[in-house]
């Protein structure tokens, strides 16, 4: 149970800079999720916190202690590696218990913990296999187990559930949540799974280009994305965008369509005529008799519901409908864009308005 804070941390691999004077404060016991496109530096960041990659500049402190120069073992962390990094010569049991044995924990206690972890990872009967005898997902579970058994102050998860099936993933999500409550440990969690991010996180950081784009609660990030990138990146099916400008009356104007923004909560007041971009999430597009007219161009069934694509002012816009909705390509629809759920971005900077 210890907070983690980074002060203008910079990390470079040879010439290329991966993290650029990053400042970050993660509260003790917080569940912190890192989102970001592949290659944006998430793992690097975790490695830096773990003390596995040297920072070029800046300081890292855990639990108020400056650990910038300390060995991983002195940082009180447990980590799930994106590449698993299992000990090939040890059995699953060996892999899980190794950290504990090193710490000199009592045999019985170790056995108990390993059993428990194995149980909730559904691999009790695999405990005596070698990693090379496991499936991809099973290996990943071993990697998770290796972290779960430890009681560290900070847990670092690097895409821990990426190759598990939805069901198991849901179950483990819950388990991790429980663990978090039980230990009250700080957890830093990298994932590409939106649901994971939104359900687990106390706070989410969205990274890109060596910087953090937005830092906030799941709701914030989802409903009030700080800029166009966050808007596109978070949420799937993704948000649709319509280019236009601010009309005299402060409403959004694009070609012949006009969207009322009176209900919109502006971050910064735009000036009339300013070129802007309007973001709409599929689930917020409502069908209404009196609304903007469109023609269905494509229909994607997605199990729970289906996604219909139409166009507003040349821009493709997706609409989420119930799976059983009777709708086909070519149908005309009328839709309504509820002002308070929209997002408005400055066209030039991409910043939220």
């Amino acid at each position, binding site marked *: 149970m210890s907070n983690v804070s980074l002060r203008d941390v910079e990390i470079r691999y040879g010439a290329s800079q991966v993290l650029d004077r990053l400042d970050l404060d993660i509260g003790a016991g917080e569940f912190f999720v890192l989102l970001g496109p592949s290659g944006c530096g998430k793992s690097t960041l975790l490695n830096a916190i773990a003390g*596995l990659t040297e920072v070029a500049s800046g300081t890292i402190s855990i639990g108020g202690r400056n650990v910038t120069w300390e060995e991983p073992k002195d940082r009180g*962390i447990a980590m799930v590696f994106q590449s698993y990094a299992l000990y*090939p*010569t040890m059995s699953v049991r060996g892999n899980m218990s190794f950290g504990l044995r090193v710490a000199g924990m009592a045999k019985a206690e170790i056995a108990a913990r390993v059993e428990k972890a194995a149980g909730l990872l559904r691999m009790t009967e695999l405990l005596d296999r*070698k990693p090379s*005898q496991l499936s991809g997902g099973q290996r990943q579970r071993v990697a998770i187990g290796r972290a779960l058994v430890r009681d560290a102050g900070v847990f670092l998860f690097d895409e821990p559930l990426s190759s598990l099936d939805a069901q198991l993933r849901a179950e483990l999500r819950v388990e991790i949540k429980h663990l978090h409550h039980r230990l009250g440990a700080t957890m830093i969690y990298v994932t590409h799974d939106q649901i994971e991010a939104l359900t687990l996180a106390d706070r989410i950081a969205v990274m890109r280009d060596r910087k953090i784009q937005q830092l906030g609660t799941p709701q914030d990030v989802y409903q009030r994305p700080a800029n166009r990138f966050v808007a596109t990146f978070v949420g799937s099916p993704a948000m649709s965008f319509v280019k236009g400008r601010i009309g005299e009356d402060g409403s959004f104007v694009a070609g012949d369509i006009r969207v009322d923004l009176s209900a919109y909560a502006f971050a910064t007041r735009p000036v009339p005529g300013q070129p802007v971009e309007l973001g709409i999430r599929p689930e917020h597009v409502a069908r209404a008799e009196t609304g903007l007219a469109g023609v269905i161009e494509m229909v994607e069934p997605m199990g729970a519901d289906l996604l219909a694509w139409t166009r507003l002012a040349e821009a493709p816009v997706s609409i989420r409908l119930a799976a059983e909705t009777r709708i086909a390509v070519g149908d005309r629809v009328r839709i309504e864009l509820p002002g308070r759920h929209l997002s408005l971005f400055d066209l030039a900077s991409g910043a939220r308005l």
Partner: protein
Amino acid sequence: MLPSSVFVGLRQYLSLFSNERWQVSVANLALFGGLFIALALILGFALAVLIDQRIRGEDLLRSVFLYPFSMSFVVTGLAWRWILDPTLGVQKLLQDIGLTGAKFDWLVQPDRVIYCLVFAAVWHAAGLVMAILLAGLRGVDPDILKAARVDGLPAWRVYLQVIAPMLGGSFATATILLATSVVRLYDLSVAMTNGGPGIASEVPAKFVMDHLFERGNIGLATAAATTMLATIAAVLVPLFLWRQHRARGGRHA
């Protein structure tokens, strides 16, 4: 040197086993082999690990540890002989500087001389073991080292408990190489002690060579050689069956 087609009866084996020099040779080989392989592996591994610590002048040090391997024993053996000889080497040196009590004459003590051979042999082979293990070490996936560091291991335990097991192949290679050099041990004994004092440092290979090439005693030589091969087979065959059995378990993916 020319093989004779004279039938070699069992009596050759009888006279072999009753041959004191042969008995001594075998005893020596056992002692020498055990000590030498163990020490060479340990020292070699230690060196490999230390060399691997991103130290300065790695190339130089590595060459230093390897150079003994580059020279034939004909002369390096002589050098060791001088160093260990009580009347020429270290003992003399110590006594010259006043430590008249200093004694270091294992080379001339029949029951100690074999350790001198081990000494020189380790000196000669450790570098090679280092090289083999170093090659293995460098192949280990860095992520696994990271994992070990996170698991809180002090460096030496990482090497002992995580990496060493992963180097099974390299260790096997090194061990077999050393084992062959033990069984074939000849030059060293010739160069350093020529089997002496007396027959105190005789070894089987030398026994075979001498009887084959210098004493033209093909019968005894072949008897000895056959015995050696039989022994080796007796060790190797089970080993292989075991490894094969283990190989079925699949390998690191």
